[in-house]
């Protein structure tokens, strides 16, 4: 499925800024890699967009934001694969 999303917040600044748009998909043909930007359904924070910082031995994802005011990796905790919603495909920047 292809997802259109509007970015809300600046935790992924400067890569993604508030008001930008992204197109994402949930066809995980290609293996997920460290550094990929993904959308996950977080148990506490809802649908969030972050970068994969590492994948542990239990196949959980650990995420990180690109910005300075981001939630910490520890606060987000280990994200099970089942919470993975999509991977970013295309980014439409608001300010060029």
């Amino acid at each position, binding site marked *: 499925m292809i*997802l259109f999303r509007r970015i809300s917040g600046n935790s992924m600044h400067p890569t993604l800024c508030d008001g930008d748009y992204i197109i994402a998909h949930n066809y995980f043909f290609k293996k997920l890699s460290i550094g990929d930007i993904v*959308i996950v359904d977080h148990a506490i*924070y809802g649908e*969030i*967009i972050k970068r994969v910082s590492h994948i542990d031995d239990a196949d959980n994802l650990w995420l990180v934001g690109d910005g300075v005011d981001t939630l910490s990796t520890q606060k987000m905790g280990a994200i099970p694969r089942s919470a993975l919603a999509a991977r970013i495909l295309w980014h439409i*920047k608001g300010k060029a």
Partner: protein
Amino acid sequence: MLLVFIMAALKFVQAINRGKKMIHKITKALDCVLNFKSVSAHCDVPCGIYDPSTMQVAALTVIRFMDQIAELDGKELTLADQAKLVRLVSEKEIHAEKVKHEVRIMWGDYFKAAQFEACPGTNELVHNIMLTGSKCKQGINRDDSLALLALVNEFASSFWKTKGVETFTATCPYPPAQDVVYPKLG
């Protein structure tokens, strides 16, 4: 020839940027109609609310507790006095720590390159607040608490300067009746 090539390259980049802006405009228009779901690039501190008044009040509180501790000096302390002394010392340390906490948040989260450029002595000032705050926790020297308030006032001046807000100094209308830097708002 080189100049022509550079001009052509610049025009090409400008055209791409115009194209990107156009795509964003089209997407935004679609968003108005289809109302895309937003995805949160969740921030730890999204509120952006910073105000030095909290640490100024905490610094005044430290002075006030030092004064109240000094009032017990030389007295033969009853059990009630001893209980009061323990409480005063404990609260003095809590408020000195509060000053350190607040300045750390404002220095770490609010101050960025532009603010450091506008107030070049900020790093040293914040370090001095941390050191003086610790002195106030460790001892009961009133001069240390006055020095802490002076530093915190200096920080407040810098903070309001970064906001483009003028300040004035006035004596706070309650004990310990010390000079405090206030913003000229409204």
